[in-house]
């Protein structure tokens, strides 16, 4: 299959790649760019582990072709902390022990940041509903809700 040039803007850095058009954003991140913080759990948009932001909105990288992200601003878990400072959602996840094995965690955190930004973290009920697309088999859900609640309150104050 013919490769095409794909320009990706990831965490403020510009990357030029030669990719087959069928390469997903997830495989481009993990297998070509060494950005393995974004996880592959199902490759079918069922688990949420690959959640990244494109132009500020949460997107499943496994259901997005890399070429579709051309020219758009991509943020992955590696780009969330600024100058060594944890993002408030990351800090809340650590404090609330909102993860165990850590494999779904980057996706949970990227979803949580978007969930708060969308205005969908107004109550525990709402957080549960809007975080339901990110599976966690270790069962950290109550602590994820606590972490999102805590971070949302920090943003609000």
């Amino acid at each position: 299959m013919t490769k095409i040039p794909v320009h990706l803007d990831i965490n403020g850095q510009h990357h030029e790649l030669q990719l087959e058009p069928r390469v997903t954003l997830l495989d481009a991140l993990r297998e070509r760019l060494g950005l393995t913080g974004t996880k592959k759990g199902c490759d079918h948009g069922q688990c949420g582990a690959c959640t990244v932001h494109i132009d500020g909105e949460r997107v499943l990288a496994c259901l997005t072709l890399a070429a579709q992200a051309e020219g758009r601003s991509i943020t992955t878990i590696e780009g969330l902390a600024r100058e060594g400072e944890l993002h408030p959602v990351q800090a809340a996840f650590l404090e609330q022990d909102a993860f165990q094995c850590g494999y779904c965690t980057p996706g949970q955190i990227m979803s949580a940041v978007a969930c708060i930004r969308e205005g969908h973290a107004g109550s525990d009920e709402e957080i549960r509903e809007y975080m339901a697309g990110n599976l966690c088999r270790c069962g950290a859900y109550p602590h994820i809700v606590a972490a999102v609640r805590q971070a949302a309150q920090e943003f609000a104050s």
Partner: protein
Amino acid sequence: MTVHTRHGDALDGALAQALGGRLSRVDGPAKITGAAKYAVEQQLEGLAYAVLVESTIASGKVRAIDTVQAEAAPGVLQVLTPDTIISLRTASDWFGTPPPDKPYCPLARDITFSGQHVAAVVAETFEQAVAAAALVKVSYDETPSIVDLSDGKAGDGIPIDAMTKEWGDAPAAFAAAPVRICAAYNTPREYQAPMEPHGLVARWEGDHLTVWEPSQWLDGMARTYAEWFEVPFENVRLVSPYIGGGFGSKALALSHGAVAASAAKMLGRPVKLVMTRQQTFTGYGGRAATRQTVTIGADRDGMIQSIVHRGVNETSIDGMWVEPLGSVTSIMYATPNFSSRQNVVRVNSVVPGAMRAPGENPSAFGIESAIDELAYVVGIDPLEIRLRNYAEQDPHAKKAWSTRQLREAFAAGAERFGWARRSPEPRSMRDGNQLIGWGVAAGTYPVRRAYGEAVVRILADGSVEVESSSIDMGQGTYTILAQTAAETVGVPADDVVVKLGDSRFARAGVSGGSRLAGVMTGAVHKAATSALDQLVGLAISDPRSPFHALQANTLVVAKGRIGSPRGDGPDVSIAELLKSVGRDRIEATGDTMPANSTAEDRYKNYTTIAMALPHTEGDYSRYSWCAHFIEVRVDEDFGTVRVSRVVSALDSGRLYNPKLAESQWKGGIIMGIGQALLEEGIMDRRHGRIVNNNLADYLVPTNADIPDIEVISVGIPDPHSSALGGKGVGELGIVGVAPAIANAVFHATGKRVRDLPITLEKLI
């Protein structure tokens, strides 16, 4: 392998750092920033990608594999079939039983289940391998398959005599009992479904193999790879710094690993193979489907006179898995007469495997549902009937419990839940069109013990390093071992770096059966004590030491500083002392093996489970215990069940880090909610194939399914269970959740569901 960034959580003060403190995960910063590299994320020069091709029939033979198109596809490096893959030797099982001297082929010619690996394609890129794998054409001679336990061809199965437990005359006592209940309880095939799929990167350098693979047991898997490829054990290195969930499924080297390592050897290049999510449902075994009958004979006060229990679990055509179904039945309640027997039935499935509390989990669903049924028949509160039949000693082993805080668990859980306000009649509590039910059930898990080993170093800068080839798949191993070393040596936990997940480190047995914390805190404590003794010995005896003139018998190390117990004399940091005596490090290896152990004993201890210590060894019977109190809300019209409240009280002995233990308990409870209400492998009966082999159709709990969960620790240190007093944590939480929910559903609706999961069609 893994060095963690020091965390700066303000809440993690000195109190949190001590063993028993609520220190945040020390591997947390790496996991929340994406810096934590999981095994298959290893980046290597020249990496090739392998994709598996699987059987589409459940029983028969591969007639031919047409690889012409696949081999011609772009980027393809090789297509492996049973005819072209290199021949391996059969490896021993996890008991270390010497294997039959015959070849092993990880790609199958004889098909015994749908989804069996029959071929593999290796290509330059993942996309090319996926595309080419679709071009491999396999033809079969199909034979009829046995789909599952309900298949007419399945039969009664094979009696497993080792599972028989009998005392008194259970059938006679049952026949004579004034109150008799008898019911059948079924659990379906369930799947571990860790978020990280199974996979590996394999690389050969000469006759040395390195495998980056998520693993609950590096040394056990290294042994298997070494035997398959007929190389010395020392030539195989397993690396597994983080594991994206295992739940029992990542303890053994599996056939996909043999395929990838063979491909790497044949190609002379490193090969990466990761199962698709669909393949994870057949590439290894989930929890076997089970059937149990529980009969209880009791007097009119609800005192049990007899329990007769019969169990069946499925296994594969050519493998053996026994899910011990009488494990909880035989110990939970005092009964003068008891009989439990079990058969296994062969079906066309991958051999089932360990999934969180194998045995205890389905066993508890049977007995903890049955005693609830008895409670309603005799008109006694379900909590009260459990207390009346409380086993004051192990009814099977006839030994004292090491510790059993189950009465305390019932009391603490009931108090917090508000059990006393429960209206006893089914269908008597409601909120609008929602029927409310309150259920209780108990759970237990044996304390599995083994010998462990660790290396502890005190370094020139006064920091401490711990090394072990044990692992952290989310239990908090990195954190509690840092706390153990910190407390033992006398430094802040921030000054301890724990390195795990590399088989080059001190050896470790399987991380399964909730044994890791007990084994490894004991080993690290021993090694750290030895390192501390060396440090203090140097400080007292070395002529260059500032303490030499003091002529002290001992010294105190705390917060990284050394001083005399009375506070007189010098006060120096560990770094200063090491500098003064001209040492750049102190190193100690500690193991808890018996003193006269041979090298062979040690190899056996770390690479097999043959040397595990029975939980009823000596004078005591050792178990963790718990009681779950659960509220459900059932929509009267639609039969939908929601868990709305959970209060669980658990006895895991001493907790090394309550913050992390609570997370694991809650995780177990949540998996139990999934088991009770959602999880079930559904078979296509025509093709003997699982149809819901993905995360959209095999339903695991989502955030929206889970309410707040309150857990209460009622444990006390148990010196008979582990060196530092802890019992098991990881498996305990799930045991008893499903029956507590089934019991709550009965209380809400008056309908007793004995087949998991409890789905709406069973209620309307």
